[in-house]
């Protein structure tokens, strides 16, 4: 794809003005980092607050009286059990129990509001229309941007503009006016920190972002730090840590399947998923901490003491807060216990590493 075929978000001009390094991501020109760099952006987000443009993600409305039970035909999460304005992390599964995408679902007055991955959004929309289109109104909100504000200073910063936002409970959403701009705000995120995701009309996005960035606590953060932050938080990246070949149970996402759904099934691949839940999966996603300083990247083969393959690294790099390399990957269930010593084959050499409990950095969500 040539540069000129890339789509842009409503914050494109702002990114250029801020000196962002723009890279192609899921068909969009997106900032990978700003002049201060990934390391500084990562540490700033953990210390204060970072602003992320995530407008490339898909925002989808599924409206209708039966939207919640209908959506449950496609996801294993308990959507009917969501109180109004409550949010839940869930998954689109396929008939083999694999994961088509991961998403956030919010119960609204009219149905359910979804935020899905950029690279999957067209396929997700087609999937929703094919299965639910005759029974619910499904619409991609193509004229809305999404801005995430993440970090321990996020609530205070937003509270300075709209005091009610500082009190929004974690994993709930609502309509708010920020600096005169109508916004749909969720208290959620993808960094392991407290934070918000703000859905705003395209034409208001630039003004909102500039208003937020006037706060000295808030710094713009690119996709590079977004990736290192979520990796330290042990959160899955779709297409890497989870995909159509991994099940929710293998991925350690059994917690997303509510009690009623475990009893009743009724989602794609339920037979496979519920069987794995009962008997345990053959492999599991684990945290991996190299003993040394060399990072192990995605695709690195994980081996046992005899250099027999145990699995593969699905995300790996340097964790700026941990101040050491960190990784996640899948290993045979027998080798998945924290403390297990494994090897990581980096450039032909076996680097010693240990299986560790996730996350690498404790979550600090609002109580």
């Amino acid at each position, binding site marked *: 794809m040539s540069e000129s075929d890339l789509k842009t978000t409503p914050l494109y001009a702002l990114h250029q003005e801020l000196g962002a390094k723009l890279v192609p991501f899921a068909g969009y020109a997106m900032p990978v980092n700003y002049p201060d*760099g*990934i390391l500084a952006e990562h540490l700033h987000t953990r210390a204060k607050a970072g602003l992320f443009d995530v407008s490339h993600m898909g925002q989808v409305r599924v409206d209708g009286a039966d939207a919640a039970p209908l959506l449950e035909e496609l996801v294993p999460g308990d959507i009917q059990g969501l109180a109004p304005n409550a949010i839940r992390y869930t998954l689109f599964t396929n008939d083999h129990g694999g994961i088509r995408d991961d998403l956030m679902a919010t119960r609204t007055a009219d149905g359910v509001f979804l935020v899905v991955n950029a690279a999957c959004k067209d396929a997700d929309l087609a999937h929703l229309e094919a299965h639910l289109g005759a029974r619910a109104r499904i619409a991609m909100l193509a004229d809305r941007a999404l801005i995430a504000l993440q970090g321990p200073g996020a609530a205070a910063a937003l509270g300075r503009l709209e005091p009610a936002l500082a009190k929004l409970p974690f994993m709930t959403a609502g309509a708010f006016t920020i600096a005169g701009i109508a916004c749909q705000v969720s208290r959620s995120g993808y960094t392991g920190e407290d934070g918000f995701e703000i859905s705003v009309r395209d034409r208001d996005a630039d003004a909102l972002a500039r208003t937020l960035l006037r706060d000295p606590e808030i710094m713009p953060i690119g996709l590079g730090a977004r990736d290192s932050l979520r990796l330290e938080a042990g959160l899955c990246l779709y297409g890497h840590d989870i995909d159509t070949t991994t099940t929710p149970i293998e991925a350690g996402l059994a917690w997303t399947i509510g009690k009623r759904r475990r009893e009743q099934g009724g989602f794609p691949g339920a037979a496979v998923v519920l069987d794995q839940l009962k008997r345990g999966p053959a492999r599991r996603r684990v945290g991996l901490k190299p003993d040394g300083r060399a990072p192990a990247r995605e695709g690195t083969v994980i081996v046992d003491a005899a250099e027999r393959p145990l699995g593969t690294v699905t995300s790996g790099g340097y964790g700026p807060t941990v101040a050491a390399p960190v990784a996640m990957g899948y290993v045979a269930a027998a080798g998945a216990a924290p403390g297990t010593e494994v090897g990581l084959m980096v450039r032909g050499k076996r680097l010693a590493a240990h299986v560790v409990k996730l996350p690498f950095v404790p979550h600090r969500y609002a109580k």
Partner: protein
Amino acid sequence: MSERRYSKEHEWIRVEGDTGTVGITDYAQGQLGDVVYVELPDPGKKVARGAQAAVVESVKAASEVYSPVGGEVTAVNADLAGNPALVNESAEDRGWFFKLTIADRADLAALMDEPAYKKFVAELG
């Protein structure tokens, strides 16, 4: 007297007699971003011109570093183990990677001098 030469892969070599000191250029460190790990060759290793001799890891990715000339590695920069950010702070001085004895000085002729390298980088945009 020392002279400095540059490769199209953004390595520099400072030549003093038969000894060359190799690192990556300031332009290269800027492109890579924060360096978090450098894998250096073992002293005694023989490297061919243009062969991979080191690896530099930024937060985002691993990049190979090629030896701009052939020769035998005699020393590595031990400071990079504890402080890989030296590559960002001082790419063309304190952030050097390794020293080697230059096997064939003719290898140097294929490299750029400073004005030529500056022009090369400017044309990359």
